[in-house]
């Protein structure tokens, strides 16, 4: 579960201010956060993952208060409990597909790579249709394939929460749906909470909730009464 209470955040030397009285995302929920560019969607993901720290308020993820942790604890928490997918895929150019999937194990000493994790990486790659391309480098893959590798990398540590920042932003329409379905499928299988930030209103099918972040961040009331939240697409919460 993710719970945000009385959050206030501001980037240094800017006028941008994010206020979030209350946001609760239940375990296993699939939430889409929509809104125009610059409204703070990515900042929300950074706050949940502990990359950014709020000026006030608390961010609780999987029962732990991320905003109160030390730098090292937040890093270790992030790599173990949170999987991240980015718009530009952000794969490491000099590593092959398998090594890219296993990257979290190479960059944080609290995780150790084992034959089990390698098997899991190969299983994920197989599920994503990448089994034949394990030895290839990112430059040798299509954009859709690169994003599938990035999803495998986000899920390899079996995190409780998956945060995806515009995961379909660089994909063609056919791949957008396919990638989202894959993310849903894997998240559901592992009972992972999924938060997808997007400004693409055409991909909202299948989410449990859609949060209009533009409306929410300017309201002083909690999310349920702000009118910024809808239930399953097409229904009013």
């Amino acid at each position, binding site marked *: 579960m993710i719970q945000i209470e009385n959050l206030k955040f501001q980037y240094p030397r800017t006028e941008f201010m994010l206020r979030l009285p209350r946001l609760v995302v239940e375990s296993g929920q699939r939430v889409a956060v929509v809104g125009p560019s610059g409204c703070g969607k990515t900042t929300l993901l950074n706050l949940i993952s502990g990359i950014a720290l709020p000026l006030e308020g608390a961010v609780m993820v999987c029962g732990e208060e991320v905003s109160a942790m030390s730098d*090292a604890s937040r*890093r*270790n928490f*992030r790599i173990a409990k949170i999987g991240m997918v980015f718009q530009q895929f952000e794969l*490491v*150019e000099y590593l092959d597909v398998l090594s890219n999937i296993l*990257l*979290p194990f190479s960059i*944080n000493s609290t995780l150790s790579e084992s034959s089990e994790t390698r098997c899991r990486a190969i299983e994920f790659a197989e599920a994503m249709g990448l089994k034949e391309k394990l030895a290839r480098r990112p430059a040798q893959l299509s954009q859709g394939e690169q994003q599938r590798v990035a999803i495998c990398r986000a899920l390899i540590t079996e995190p409780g929460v998956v945060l995806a920042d515009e995961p379909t932003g660089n994909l063609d329409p056919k791949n957008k749906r396919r990638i989202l379905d894959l993310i849903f499928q894997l998240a559901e299988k592992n009972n992972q909470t999924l938060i997808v930030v997007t400004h693409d209103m055409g991909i909202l099918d299948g989410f449990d909730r859609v949060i209009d972040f533009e409306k929410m961040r300017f309201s002083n009331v909690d999310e349920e009464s702000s009118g910024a939240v809808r239930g399953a697409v097409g229904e009013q919460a």
Partner: protein
Amino acid sequence: MIGPLRLAWRYVLFHKAKSLILIACIVLTTILPVAVKLLVWQFDQKIVARAASTPSIVGAKGSSLDLVLSALYFKQGGVEPVPYSEVERARGDGLATAIPLHCMFTAMDYPVVGTSLEYFDYRELEVLDGTLFVSLGDCVVGHKVAEMLSVAVGDQLISDRANVLDLAGQSPLKLNVVGVLDASRTPDDWAVFVDLKTAWVIQGLGHGHQDLNKVSPESPVLIASESGRIIANRGVVSYIEITDENVDSFHFHGDTDEFPVTAVLVSASGFKEETILQGRYESSDSEVQFVRPEIVVRDLMTIVFQVNRFFNANAILIGGSTAMLLVLVVLLSLRLRKREMQTMFRLGCSRGTIVWLQVGEMGIIFGFAMVFVLLGSTWVWMVSGDIVEGLLVNSR
């Protein structure tokens, strides 16, 4: 720290060209001063050791350095010869052992050194194959000469003409190889040794020709023959090879005491004897000089080391600028890889690990560079002796 190091290794492997260029920059910047240092050190060791093993030299007045280089390294030119009588004078009243050296000619571009058999004892040279020269026309070749020219006992070497355009000059002489010296790792490996008289024959001071007593009186080579004196023209057949059959026909015209030698190696039996000898030579009207090679060589090395200091300063400046360029390359690389580093950080990588990643990459590159520097330096160390000897001997 295995993970970051593994990533660093993969990065270095992926960017082969960049890594190789960086390694080459470090290797070249490092190995050049190291190689020069080794060569100068080896030069110092070799030249001082050779000089120290030669107590004193007598030769014509002039450049003492030229005289020393001529006597120790058989360098030709720049030294006026002294008469052979100086050898006898140096022996004096048994004050010293004096060994003549005459090195004005070459055979197949290697110096031909006319000397006496005492030279081989003096330099502690061993014969690997054959014997020392026993008769006129024999030669003993140094180890390197035998190796480079692929000559062995029983082969022949032809002395070079002093001037290839001088067709009327002294004809080359065929030298019979009777011995090959064992390797001594000194300039003696690079020389051809002959008896002093053979050297004079090469110079044209002695020669052998057909027996004029056996020439027909009608022969066109005879100009006159009266009361036992036979006068022939230049058509008389001169020998260019000394054999058992013609060796008796070889003879010298003139007083051998006046024949030239380039230098005389003098080894006094004691300090007192050496001082007495030195006193004899230091009179102002003397045509010859008495030098101690070690002092001359140490003076030379002082200049070499002063020049080397400038080279060191130059190497430091080049090293500094290369280091700055490397820093620039690393900084630019960091800028190019900012997104990669940011992604790693967002995934849960610490800044310390990212630093380790960078350090690992530079460490691998420096490690490889140092391995190459070490291999290169070892190679330079192994060949520096030969290089220095070659430089000293071939500078003639």
